[in-house]
């Protein structure tokens, strides 16, 4: 696979991270990563409720080798810890998801959400400031009207670039359960937010009401058998969306059919392989992420051990299944004990939908080329990420004699997990979040 045969890795860390590789606070753990539609900006959210936006450096004739470096553009506190006094529950400030809106003017807009509240943020630049007010002096203090003898018009003068983020909308009090997904519709007027049992449709301009479009809460909660785990709008058809469940199924719904989309239009489910049936089958079949391809023809789902690609025109089975770390199948009991079996991995498409990527343990992440059927395991680590270094493929030894440079399954560090990754929309640049570190890798083919 030609992609990522040579790499220029960069390492970014949140501004307040302690500069020690082994020490970081819980709040610094990155919880979501997302490129914007052009790939110019990269947003990260963390458990402390902060959003850090990186911007790609512009191409310069003088510093051509610096093209592609991402530097911190803006940092702001998106969500704060809250307390629900009615239910006596603390609401975490952790950012669950960030989604960018397409750029329509000079400012950038993004949605960020924690467990209960979605916020629309405007990120804008200010590089000029008005000077020469009549009624105020240069420090902003009001002048004595008696001293004003002339009339002058304020003029805009250049200033140091300042990037400011302001919350433009707050969409609150619409979710009883924990929000797991947000997705911007292709009409750019609406978006949806999904929790464990319900999906709501919002208009960006209206914050005090939303439409409930999916409700799977049973009348008797004792009959609850599945929850919603992820949801996404179709990239082109504003009436179509999909949502995945904890039972490993995907439902495609058409909002034109009815106001409440409890009845799906398409139902994607693969029959369970009886030979793989185990004690924890139900847990590992839960889908943790669902993503439409850029073309809108396919959907990709991630469960605990595999990534599957589905054709929207075929509901009875996926067209492709990729084993991410099948060597863990025999370790499920241990993974249940240390809670790793509940980890929710995400998956991403590359810009041309030819390669898919997802994370694993030991700071490994995997790429699968759909055309050549080749796959590679790479590692995001400081030792392997020196400037201009080439990422070497890694291999996990599942049994027998371990070769040099291979790592045995028992040596994997399950505390180092890559749950969140992002792929530039048009170039081979990837962002990989490893706990509190953000790695950005770029394919440089000379």
């Amino acid at each position, binding site marked *: 696979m030609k992609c990522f045969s040579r790499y220029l890795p960069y390492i970014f860390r949140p501004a307040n991270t302690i500069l020690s590789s082994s020490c970081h606070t819980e709040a610094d753990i990155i919880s979501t990563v997302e490129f914007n539609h052009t790939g110019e900006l990269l947003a990260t959210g963390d458990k402390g409720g902060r959003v850090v936006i990186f911007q790609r450096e512009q191409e310069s004739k003088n510093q051509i080798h610096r093209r592609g470096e991402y530097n911190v553009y803006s940092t702001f506190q998106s969500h704060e810890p809250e307390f629900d006094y009615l239910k006596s529950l*603390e609401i975490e400030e952790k950012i669950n998801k960030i989604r960018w809106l397409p750029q329509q003017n000079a400012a950038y807009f993004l949605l960020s959400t924690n467990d209960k509240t979605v916020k629309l943020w405007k990120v804008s630049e200010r590089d000029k400031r008005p000077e020469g007010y009549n009624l105020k002096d240069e420090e902003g203090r009001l002048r004595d009207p008696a001293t004003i003898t002339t009339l002058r018009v304020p003029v805009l003068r250049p200033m140091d670039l300042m990037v400011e983020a302001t919350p433009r909308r707050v969409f609150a009090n619409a979710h009883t359960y924990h929000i797991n997904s947000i997705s911007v519709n292709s009409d750019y007027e609406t978006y949806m937010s999904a929790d464990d049992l319900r999906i709501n449709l919002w208009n960006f301009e209206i914050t005090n009401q939303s439409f409930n479009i999916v409700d799977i809460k049973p009348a008797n*909660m004792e009959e609850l058998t599945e929850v919603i785990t992820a949801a996404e709008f179709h990239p082109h058809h504003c009436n179509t969306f999909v949502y995945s469940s904890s039972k490993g199924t995907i439902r495609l719904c058409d909002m034109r059919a009815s106001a409440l989309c409890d009845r799906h239009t398409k139902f994607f489910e693969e029959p369970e392989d009886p030979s793989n049936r185990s004690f924890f089958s139900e847990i590992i079949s839960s889908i943790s992420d669902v993503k439409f391809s850029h073309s809108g023809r396919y959907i990709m789902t991630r469960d605990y051990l595999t990534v599957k690609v589905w054709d929207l025109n075929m509901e009875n089975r996926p067209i492709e299944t990729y084993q991410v770390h099948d060597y863990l199948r025999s370790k499920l009991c241990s993974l249940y004990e240390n809670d790793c079996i509940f980890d929710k991995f995400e998956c991403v498409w590359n810009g041309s939908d030819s390669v898919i990527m997802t994370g694993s343990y030991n700071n490994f992440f995997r790429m699968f080329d759909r055309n050549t059927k080749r796959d590679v395991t790479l590692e995001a680590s400081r030792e392997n990420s020196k400037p201009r270094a080439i990422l070497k493929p890694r291999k996990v030894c599942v049994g027998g004699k371990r070769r040099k440079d291979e790592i045995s399954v028992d040596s994997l560090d399950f505390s180092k997990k890559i749950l969140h990754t992002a792929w530039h929309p048009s170039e081979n640049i990837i962002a990989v979040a490893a706990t509190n570190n953000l790695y950005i890798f770029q394919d440089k083919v000379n």
Partner: protein
Amino acid sequence: MEVQKEAQRIMTLSVWKMYHSRMQRGGLRLHRSLQLSLVMRSARELYLSAKVEALEPEVSLPPACPSDPRLHPPREVESTVETATADGEQPSPEPMDTQEAPTAEEIPAYSAPRPAKVSRKRRSSSLRDGGDAGLVPSKKARLEEKEEEEGLSSEVADRLQPPPAQAEGAFPNLARVLQRRFSGLLNCSPAAPPTAPPACEAKPACRPADSMLNVLVRTVVAF
């Protein structure tokens, strides 16, 4: 036997995780709780099926069980299960009666409609609506006797319980049930695990987990 031990260990581990999840920030996670309940159910089914296969004779109250009030939970759990039933929750799936050999019919009792013929307890709960007072007074008497012992174990439970304001939250039924039951389970487990629960050995004290877990598995999704 190994299968039974493993199933018991998984059940204990799951209950511990369920309890621990209440303490985490953000409150109970519905998805996590559902997954834990599924594992508990699978473990229970495996445990019961292994028991059927082994055709073990039913074990009554363990003779080796000392008369420590904290280890009375076997009776206490069953009585408090009935208390929970009386609180208005739906009748729990029928726990294995100590005198009866488990049958294959009872294994899917969790999900299937429960027949009324299986044991005295079920019959009494179904007849409660019919007003048959023959069995109820004796149950009430037993409950009154056990309240003292509940009080003794409540001291242990209090140390484990969060303040009531926190314990309620979004899932009050589950919180109440866990507060009442889990102290008993912890007392019958080898040790209250600070980090990870140890393997639950095949002690007779684990026996009452059947009835408790029936309630717990159901109450997990009852909120």
